[in-house]
């Protein structure tokens, strides 16, 4: 709170205004504080001897290219003493995750997908028109099938459901049946929603998916600390900023270039005060261009 007050100008008016805005600022500070505390967790597990602390600024960087550089640093592949069996990567701090850029239509068209719900099978032995035994089998996602036995007093709703599905005649019902309870679902979230929800997850997923899938992957994940803003709690550590290697940016495609020139001309005309009632194409400047 005091820090927030000091960071503003020593203007009396500003301080009075700050008193009114203190509560939302407090909430913001608390939210940042939460992620700070989370960022400090797990540091004891890492052997920090001789590792550098590299700071990546994600402002204006393209997502995949930044993630590729981060993954090489986190693996320790930029050191000549690299060994594939031990994890020697530097600690990576990524700032300004919310200012990440992507090219093309990825803001709306890139989806993060995951599967939910696991199928639960029920093995049912029916004898003489009621459920005699019900054996619950879980899906073998973790490699083990849990087998529980429940007698006739199983859940009534399930029994009713199952008895409805079976053929009508009582003799035909007798036998062994296998029923599947839940349907697995595919859920997806677009990049735009994910950035609104948690921009750090975007970079984390990108980097994690670029690391080799071995036993060191989780340790390397622990070395990554990502922050949405530009505040981080590691000021007392020896920090080095990371300079991105020079990159050859592709020249703009002709259609995109023409559209950009049109937008520029329109902006100039608006500045000069000539008001036209026409509406041009909407362009979001920073997010969709390759520069």
């Amino acid at each position, binding site marked *: 709170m005091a820090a927030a007050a000091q960071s503003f100008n020593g203007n009396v008016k500003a301080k009075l205004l700050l008193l009114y805005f203190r509560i939302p600022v407090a909430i913001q500070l608390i939210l940042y504080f939460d992620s700070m505390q989370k960022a400090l967790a797990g540091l004891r597990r890492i052997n920090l001897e001789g590792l550098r602390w590299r700071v990546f600024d994600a402002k204006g960087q393209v997502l995949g290219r930044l993630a590729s550089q981060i993954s090489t640093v986190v693996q320790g*592949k*930029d050191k*000549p003493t*690299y*060994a*594939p069996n031990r994890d020697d990567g530097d600690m990576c701090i990524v700032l300004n995750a919310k200012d990440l850029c992507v090219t093309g239509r990825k803001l709306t068209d890139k989806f993060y997908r995951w599967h939910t719900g696991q199928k639960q099978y029920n093995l049912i032995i029916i004898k003489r028109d009621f459920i005699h035994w019900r054996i619950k089998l879980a899906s073998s996602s973790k490699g083990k099938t849990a087998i529980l036995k429940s007698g006739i007093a199983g859940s009534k709703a399930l029994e009713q459901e199952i008895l409805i599905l079976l053929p009508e005649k009582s003799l035909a019902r007798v036998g062994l049946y296998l029923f599947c309870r839940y349907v697995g679902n595919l859920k997806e979230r677009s990049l735009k929603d994910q950035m609104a929800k948690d921009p750090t997850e975007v970079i984390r997923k990108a980097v994690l998916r670029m690391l080799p899938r071995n036993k060191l992957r989780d340790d390397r994940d622990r070395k990554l600390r990502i922050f949405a803003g530009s505040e981080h709690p590691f000021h007392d550590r020896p920090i080095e900023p990371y300079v991105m290697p020079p990159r*050859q940016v592709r*020249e703009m495609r*002709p259609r995109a270039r023409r559209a950009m*020139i049109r937008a520029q001309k329109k902006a100039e005309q608006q500045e000069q005060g000539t008001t036209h009632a026409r509406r041009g194409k909407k362009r979001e400047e920073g997010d969709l261009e390759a520069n």
Partner: protein
Amino acid sequence: MNKKEVFKLAKGFRGRAKNCIRIARERVEKALQYSYRDRRNKKRDMRSLWIERINAGTRLHGVNYGNFMHGLMTENIQLNRKVLSELSMHEPYSFKALVDVSHNAFPGNKKVVPPKKEGLSILV
């Protein structure tokens, strides 16, 4: 191989493979096959590890592995990758000298300008 030899080779195996002869015999045969194959694979793996280390070392000086090696070949320096990786790990100044030699011999391609596409540039 008699049983005694098989069990001697099956030390450290998992489960019944170290104790029961039928299973141990299978696993030991497989282990010997793997070791035959991996004696050849080890040479490949080590070379690729040397190349990774050399790559990391040269990139610290702004040169990548390909250009570095090309420069060394032009200068007819016949140090092999094993030695070069050891130098890059333990003798940084000597390695820097080598990188400079290679860079003088082959500075790398200049930034390649993509060819201008005639037709569309007229419209812009």
